[in-house]
């Protein structure tokens, strides 16, 4: 038996495939990935490299073509153009206002809605509804609600004796209005992330703590909050980066005004690139945005790593 087998070992069988199984698998894997990869290279990685180059050129309606100017655009932004720091200031204010408000409200709502009770589905549905709504539609409606004297918000405030400001005509109020309406639009997303995290915490912990005499606040402060830390960090990263990307909401609600009071980075890029066609300068702004986002990500991931050790 063994010998007959050995005699027939020499030649490769006719039906053996042209590639060994291992390489065949590799080839198949790359074929599976190729649509994603090719699209990714063309529409993401390529443009990302291009924007680095663009940012170092002078390229606008006057020049009509790209001339290499090194870091001039960055110099312009950081040291010459007064708008830039104003825009950065707006973006930071927007983020500093939006992120804590969003997260605090999301966590509060999640704590209230993570346990079943009568009406829990209703409330979850309500608080999440703006998330699936188009930002443009949301901004259109709020723009009406926030009109000066005739707007519904001010009319309602008048019932309780408050003389509301002309929200969208005064820079500071406009910023506040944009932040709050954005929070209302997006808070549902963080809320459900928190609910999912809360529901993943075993009840045993809380029950054990209660037997040991911990109050509700102590249970939250000493058990739930620490266990939520990874979720909190993820939500913080997503929300912060999200706040730097906001464009459609502001475009529709204030158009960056009044007096550039709500002109944030994403909007500024659009304005410089597509309204003023200053491609080089806009690309430099895009690079700055890229760096900000990367730094935020790295910082937050590092914090998370350290927290885990």
């Amino acid at each position, binding site marked *: *038996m*063994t010998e007959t087998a050995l005699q027939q*070992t020499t030649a490769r*069988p006719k039906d*053996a*495939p042209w590639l*060994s*199984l291992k390489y065949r698998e590799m080839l198949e894997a790359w074929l599976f990935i190729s649509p994603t990869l090719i699209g990714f290279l063309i529409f993401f990685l390529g443009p990302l490299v291009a924007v680095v180059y663009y940012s170092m050129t002078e390229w606008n309606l006057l020049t009509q073509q790209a001339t290499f100017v090194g870091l001039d655009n960055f110099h312009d932004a950081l040291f010459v153009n007064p708008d830039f720091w104003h825009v950065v200031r707006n973006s930071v204010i927007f983020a500093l206002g939006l992120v804590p408000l969003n997260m605090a409200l999301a966590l509060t709502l999640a704590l209230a809605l993570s346990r079943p009770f009568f009406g829990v589905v209703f409330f979850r549905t309500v608080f999440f509804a703006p998330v699936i709504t188009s930002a443009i539609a949301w901004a259109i409606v709020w723009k009406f609600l926030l009109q000066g004297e005739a707007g519904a918000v001010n009319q309602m405030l008048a019932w309780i004796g408050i003389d509301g400001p002309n929200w969208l005509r005064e820079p500071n109020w406009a910023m506040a209005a944009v932040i709050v309406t954005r929070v209302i639009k997006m808070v549902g997303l963080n809320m459900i992330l928190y609910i999912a995290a809360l529901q993943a915490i075993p009840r045993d912990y809380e029950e054990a703590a209660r037997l040991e005499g911990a109050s509700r606040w102590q249970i939250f402060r000493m058990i739930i909050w620490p266990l939520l830390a990874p979720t909190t960090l993820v939500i913080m990263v997503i929300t912060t980066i999200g706040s730097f990307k906001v464009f459609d909401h502001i475009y529709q609600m204030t158009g960056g005004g009044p007096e550039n009071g709500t002109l944030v980075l994403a909007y500024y890029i659009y304005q410089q690139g597509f309204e003023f066609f200053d491609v080089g300068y806009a690309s430099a702004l895009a690079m700055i945005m890229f760096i900000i986002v990367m730094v935020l990500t790295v910082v937050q991931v590092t914090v998370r790593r350290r927290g885990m050790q």
Partner: protein
Amino acid sequence: MTGLVLKDLKKRFGGTQVIRGVDLTIEDGEFTVFVGPSGCGKSTLLRMIAGLEDITSGELYIGNRLMNDVQAAKRGVAMVFQSYALYPHLNVRDNMGFGLKVRKVPVAERERRVKEAAATLKLDALLHRYPRELSGGQRQRVAIGRAIVGNPDVFLFDEPLSNLDAELRVHMRSEIASLHKRLSTTMVYVTHDQIEAMTLADKIVVLRDGLIEQVGSPRELYERPGNLFVAQFIGSPKMNILPAASTRLLAPSSTPPASAESVGVRPEHLVVVEPSDNVLRGSIALNEYTGAVTLLHVELPDGSTCLVVHDGKDLPAFGSEIGLMADPQNLHFFDRNEVAAKNRSG
């Protein structure tokens, strides 16, 4: 003729060598069991035969065809998985017929073969059920049925009984044995349970650390283990290993080979006698009553423990002194390298 020939098979995962050169011949129609402790590579070896793992080096022949680079489905083998791997979205009939459908077997033929297999395995009444609606034993049978319908040249079983409870395991074991009798197809079966190996196998392959320790019939492995590892792995309870010097007391008429370093004797081969200076003495440290027999834990003078299977008549009391003896032909000698030591006389 669908025997298997493995020639110097090797498998490497990254830096770790899992299979380190296996040479093995499996005859047509033979029931072969790969057995060994966990991590010995037995499942990997089976998966290499199946075509689920690629072969790093060496050659694999199934029915005299080189199979190294042939796809799993074209090797003429069928596999029964540990978790059964039934498709949750298909009912029993479609699960069993799936392979035939993929291979474009005509519907009528497919139906016939599924029915046949279902009848053999008493699954007729369950054909429309989904896997989640079946008990463990039924799922197991469906998994076997799926293997049968393809008419494979070789059946591969990867620890198929390990997810069943004890009673069902014994039952399915006998079903697999009778299945083999009926089909007389080559079967390769992986298990870590040596009882399963002993009861099912025509040929047992004992593996350790990616190498074959010994190949042989259950009787051969039990009666003539090739080395200390096999001696202790096959048989339950484990073989006792004593210094070769103990032979003089255990069986005065026996003459150990010159190279013998240690002597092994199975618990069921030790006989309890009156203690005296001419026998191996010990004291009872623990009695484990199991019903049919009682397992004595005997503490020897050197502090080691020796197991004895006792029929329960005149059971020595806890703490009492006893003597132990054995038939010379039931002794196994091992040399310095833990390999069976041979008497020149044979």
